[in-house]
C-alpha cells in the first residue's frame, strides 16, 4: 500500500450548496501535496473532511489504507495546523504542545521526550514557558506546527499556515516547513492560495476550482504545461499573458494570428491537432517574453512600455502591443521609461495554446 491518503467519490454539500463534487484523490506515502485554488473553492472543506471535522455527504476517506470516513479526528493519525494558529491562549507553549498527549494519557516521560524533540526540531526551546500572546506570529505558527509534530502522526494537514505572516517571515517559515518535510518524510497536505508556496513546497500540486480538481501534477509540469486556461491563469505571478486569436495557415505553416499580427508556432509541442481556423488562446509567461535581445531565429514584434514595475531582483514591464497589454519580466538592471518603444519575442517552446471554447490545452 503506497497510498497514504485516498479519497473516493467524496461529495459534500452545505444544504443546497455543493462544495465538493465526487472527488477522487490519492496521495502517496511521504508526499507533499499542495491544494491550491482561489478563495471559496473548497480547499479548507476538503482538508476538514480528511481531518474528520466535517462529515462528507457521500464517499469514503482512507488513511494508510484504513477506512476512516466515520472516525473521530483524533483516531485518524493526522495533525493539523491552522491559519490562525489556534493556539490555546491560556496555556503555555509547553501545555499547548502536550495537551493532546495529556488528553490521550500518554506517559509523562514520553510526553517530555516528544516535546523536547519537537522543540528541538522547531527551535522553540526558549519559548516553552511563554503564553501564545507573548509570541510573534512566526513563533506562534512554529508552535502550532509543533502541536502536530508531537502527536507523531502519519499525515500533516496545513490550512494556509503562513497567510497571516508578512512576506519575510513567510519565506523563512516556508523553508522550514520544506526542511521539516525532508527530515520527517511524513505525508503532508498543504492548503494555500499563494502560488509561490505551492510551487516551492509541493511534490505535487492539486489545483482546485469550485470543488473540482483541475490538474494534479508536479510543480514544473503545472507551471510549464497547464492543462487548461484556468490553471494557466491561476499559476504564475504576474500571470500568464493571454492573446486571443485563431490558427491560420500562412506560408505552409500554421501560425497564430491576433489583431492582424501573426506569431510563428515553431517550437511549440502540440498535444492536439493545430487545425487552421480554430479559435485559440495563446498563453505566454512574462519571463518567456524577451525584449531587445535578438535571439537566434526569434521573430520580433514592436511594443511600447506602458508601466514599469521594479521589483528589486527584476523588473516588470507592462507592454502595449496590438491591442493587448502584456507583462514582461526583465532583469533588474535595465530600466525602461514609460513610452519607450522596443521589440519583443516569444519563447514558443514553453508557451501554451488553448482551445478558446473548451479552454483545454491543445
Amino acid at each position, binding site marked *: 500500500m503506497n497510498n497514504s491518503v485516498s479519497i473516493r467519490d467524496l461529495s459534500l454539500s452545505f444544504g443546497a450548496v455543493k462544495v465538493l463534487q465526487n472527488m477522487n484523490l490519492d496521495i502517496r506515502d511521504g508526499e507533499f501535496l499542495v491544494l491550491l485554488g482561489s478563495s471559496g473553492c473548497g480547499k479548507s472543506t476538503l482538508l476538514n473532511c480528511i481531518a474528520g471535522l466535517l462529515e462528507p455527504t457521500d464517499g469514503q476517506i482512507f488513511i494508510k489504507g484504513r477506512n476512516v470516513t*466515520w472516525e473521530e479526528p483524533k483516531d485518524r493519525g493526522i495533525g493539523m495546523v491552522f491559519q490562525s494558529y489556534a493556539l490555546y491562549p491560556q496555556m503555555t507553549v509547553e501545555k499547548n504542545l502536550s495537551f493532546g498527549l495529556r488528553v490521550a494519557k500518554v506517559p509523562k516521560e514520553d510526553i517530555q521526550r516528544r516535546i523536547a524533540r519537537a522543540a528541538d526540531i522547531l527551535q522553540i526551546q526558549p519559548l516553552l514557558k511563554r503564553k501564545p500572546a507573548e509570541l510573534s506570529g512566526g513563533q506562534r505558527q512554529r508552535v502550532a506546527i509543533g502541536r502536530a509534530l508531537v502527536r507523531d502522526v502519519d499525515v500533516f494537514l496545513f490550512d494556509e499556515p503562513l497567510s497571516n505572516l508578512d512576506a519575510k517571515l513567510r519565506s523563512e517559515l516556508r523553508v522550514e516547513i520544506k526542511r521539516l518535510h525532508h527530515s520527517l518524510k511524513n505525508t503532508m497536505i498543504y492548503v494555500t492560495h499563494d502560488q509561490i508556496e505551492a510551487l516551492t513546497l509541493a511534490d505535487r500540486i492539486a489545483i482546485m476550482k469550485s470543488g473540482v480538481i483541475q490538474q494534479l501534477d508536479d510543480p514544473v509540469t503545472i507551471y510549464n504545461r497547464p492543462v487548461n486556461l484556468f490553471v494557466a491563469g491561476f499559476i504564475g505571478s504576474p500571470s500568464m499573458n493571454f492573446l486571443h486569436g485563431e490558427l491560420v495557415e500562412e506560408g505552409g505553416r500554421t501560425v497564430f494570428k491576433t489583431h492582424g499580427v501573426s506569431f510563428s508556432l515553431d517550437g511549440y509541442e502540440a498535444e492536439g491537432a493545430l487545425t487552421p481556423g480554430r479559435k485559440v488562446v495563446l498563453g505566454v509567461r512574462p519571463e518567456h517574453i524577451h525584449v531587445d535581445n535578438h535571439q537566434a531565429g526569434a521573430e520580433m514584434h514592436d511594443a511600447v512600455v506602458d508601466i514599469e514595475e521594479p521589483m528589486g531582483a527584476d523588473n516588470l514591464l507592462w507592454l502595449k502591443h496590438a491591442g493587448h497589454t502584456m507583462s514582461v519580466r526583465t532583469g533588474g538592471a535595465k530600466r525602461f521609461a514609460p513610452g519607450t518603444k522596443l521589440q519583443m519575442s516569444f519563447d514558443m517552446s514553453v508557451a501554451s495554446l488553448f482551445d478558446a471554447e473548451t479552454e483545454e490545452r491543445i
Partner: protein
Amino acid sequence: MTGLAPAKRPNQLFRNLTAKIASIPMILIALGIFLGGSLWTVVYSFTNSKLLPRATFVGFDQFERLWASSRWIISIQNLAIYGILSLIFSMVIGFLLAALMDQKIRFENTFRTIFLYPFALSFIVTGLVWQWILNPEFGVQGIVRSLGWESFTFDPLYNPDIVIYGILIAGLWQGTGLVMCLMLAGLRGIDEDIWKAARVDGIPMWRTYLFIVIPMMRPVFITTLVIIASGIVKVYDLVVAQTSGGPGNASEVPAKYVYDYMFQAQNLGQGFAASTMMLLTVAIIIIPWAYLEFGGKKRG
C-alpha cells in the same frame, strides 16, 4: 486499488452523543417547561378551572369574558404604551449615554457605575422610593411648590391619565444602565477605521452615529431587544411595588391580570386565557424573527 472497503454511515443519533447528553437539561427545559408549560396553559385556558386545574372544557368562554373585561383592555393598552415607550426610550437613552461615555471622557468608570447601579436593586425596593419621589405631597412636586411655584403639578402616580408614564420613569431608571452597557460594548466593537474614514470625509459626529454606526450595531440591538422586550412583557413587580395597578385600575398590566385572576380571583381558566393571549402575541412576533435570526443561517 484493493482493500479499500467502503464503510457504512453510522447511526446519526449517536454521533456526538456527549453533546446531545449534555444538552438534555436544555432540551428538557425548552420542551418540558417552556413548550410543555405553554401548551398546558393553552389547553387549560379552554377550561373553567378555578382554584385547581380541572379539565372541564368550556370552549372560548374564558376568552370572550377576557375581551369583554375593561380591565384587560386597559392592561393591554398600558402594556402597549409602556412597552413601546420603554423600548424607544431605553434604547435611545441607553445609546445616548453610551455615545457620551464613548467620547474618551474622564471618570468613565464612575459614570458607568452610577448608571448601572439601579440594575442591582430589586423593585420591591425601588418602587417604594419612586412612589415617594413622585408623591405629590413630599416628593418632587412638594419640593418645587415649597420653592414658590405653587401651581406646579407633578403627580404621575396619582393621576390615572399619566400613571403609566410615572411607572415608565422608574422603569427607565432601573433598566437603561444595562442597555447603556450593552450599547457601549457595541460601540467599542466598531472598527476604528470607520471613525477615521468618516472624519476624513468630514461627516459630523451625529451623522456618523446615525447613519453609519447604528446600522452597524444590529447584533447588539438584537440582543438588547431580546433582553428589554422580555422584561417588558413580564413587567409586574414594578407596577405592584409602585401603584398596585392604581389609581383605580389605571396602571394595570397583563402580567398582573394573569396573576390576580390565577391567585386572587381563583379563576385559573381566566388567568390562563389571558396568558394564552400574551403567549400568542409574543409568538406571532418572535417566531418569524427567531427563525430568521437563529434558524436560517448556518455556521461552519
